[in-house]
Structures are given as C-alpha cells and as structure tokens.
C-alpha cells in the first residue's frame, strides 16, 4: 500500500503530497504525522499541497485535524502551495480550513515556521535568501 513520505529536517517535518489523495491515504498520513511529531519532537510541520489539483471536504477536514492534533502536541502545521483554482473552489464549497496556518509556497512556509519558533532556538535555522 502506498504511503506519503515524511521527511525530518532539523526541528521540522516536511510532507509533499505528490499523488492523488484517496481517503485511506489521508487517514494514514494523519496517523503517521501525529506519531512522528511525538517520536521526533518536531516543533513544526510543513505540508506542501502544490501538486494537489483538488481539495475536497474530506481532505480539508484532514488538514484541519492534523493542524489541531499537532498543535496540542506542541507543533505548528503550515499548509503551503495551494493552487488558485483549488482556493477558489474551497471557498465556494464552504470550507475555510479553521486552525490551519497557510503560506504561499515552501519558502514562505519555512520562514513562517522559523519565525514562530525562532524565539526558542535562534541559532540553527537562519533564513537564507539567495534570489
């Protein structure tokens, strides 16, 4: 059965969703992520959905629950890379993703996590801009 890989990078966990999400895959991701927040002690989770061409109510609910679960485990979740057409559709569908932090892209999402966690650990992850 397929699984979505979760990468650990410093105090963050990174997830890039590159496949068509079906419901069980979404549930597995939710379980894996919360478990990994627990075992790794990560303080930030970044979920990149730029490859997703739809987010329906099930997927939206899953993103919201991941954000709430990780928050009560002391980690912030940021969802990044939502396509404009997906955002338009989500709003019309009536979903606002309560409790989910969002950023435009991976760069901005990392920046957001770093700033939010910056006070606790100012040394390691200075944001580097090379553009």
């Amino acid at each position, binding site marked *: 059965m397929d699984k979505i890989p979760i990468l650990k990078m410093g105090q963050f966990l990174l997830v890039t969703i590159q496949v068509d999400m079906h419901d069980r895959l979404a549930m597995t991701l939710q379980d894996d992520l919360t478990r990994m927040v627990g075992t790794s002690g990560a303080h930030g989770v970044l979920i990149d959905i730029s490859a997703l*061409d739809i987010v*329906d109510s099930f997927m939206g609910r899953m993103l919201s629950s991941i954000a709430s679960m990780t928050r009560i485990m002391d980690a912030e979740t940021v969802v990044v890379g939502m396509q404009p057409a997906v955002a338009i*559709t989500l709003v019309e569908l009536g979903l606002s993703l309560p409790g989910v932090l969002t950023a435009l892209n991976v760069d901005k999402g990392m920046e957001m996590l770093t700033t939010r966690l910056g006070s606790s650990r100012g040394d390691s992850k200075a944001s580097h801009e090379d553009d």
Partner: protein
Amino acid sequence: MKTIEREVMQVANEAGVVTARRMARDHAIRLGLNLVNQTKLVTAVSELARNMVVYAGGGKVTIEEVEAGIKRGLRITFAYNGPGITDLELAMRDGYTTGGGLGQGLPGSRRLVNEFTINSEVGVGTTVTIIKWK
C-alpha cells in the same frame, strides 16, 4: 438536451472515487473547461462519489457530454445503491451530516456546478444529477 458521448462506471470504494475524479477531469479537459471550472467540477464529483460510497455502499456514475442549443456541457449522474435519504431538505442544509463529515458534501457541490438536481425516495434510492456548462 442532446447527449454526444456517454461513459459509465461503477463506484464501489474509495479507489472508485479517485477513478471517477480522473474521468471527470479528462472529460472536462476535452470539453475545454477552464482550470477553475475543471477544479470545481472534479471537486463536486469527489464529494458526490464519496457520498455514494459512505452512505450507500457505492453506485453508478454516468458522465455525458451534452448539448443544448449552442451550449455544451458535462452532465454527471450519480445513482446511489442505497435506500434513499429520509429528509432531503435537511441533507441539503450546510453543516448537516450523519456520516461524520463536515456536512458540506451536498450543499457545497450544488454551489460548484450550474445545475444540481437530487431525487430520493426511501426504499428506492437516490439520484443526483449535476451539469457544468462550458
């Protein structure tokens, strides 16, 4: 309304939901819907196909390319296997759910398409038809 092309598939589980989405996307692209309308249509298909699986154990999805006068569009019909919905008005209300979802499936899908018809009779079954015009 004239049907130009028709494709039928059975949806029995969540893998079927993914297939239905893909099929709807293919037809939408072929018809020339823009990206936002493709996304809206495919999202509505995802909601309604999942509904069929969760509440009725599956059903049949029919995708048709239709023509009415100078308009062209996609008509997608969801024939639920299940026993029907007891209170349609309630089921169409935002936030109402019996399946542990967010209650956006039916009312949300209605907002994503141009035409939305739902017929349900207890003991007989439920049919949802949506149309997205180009």
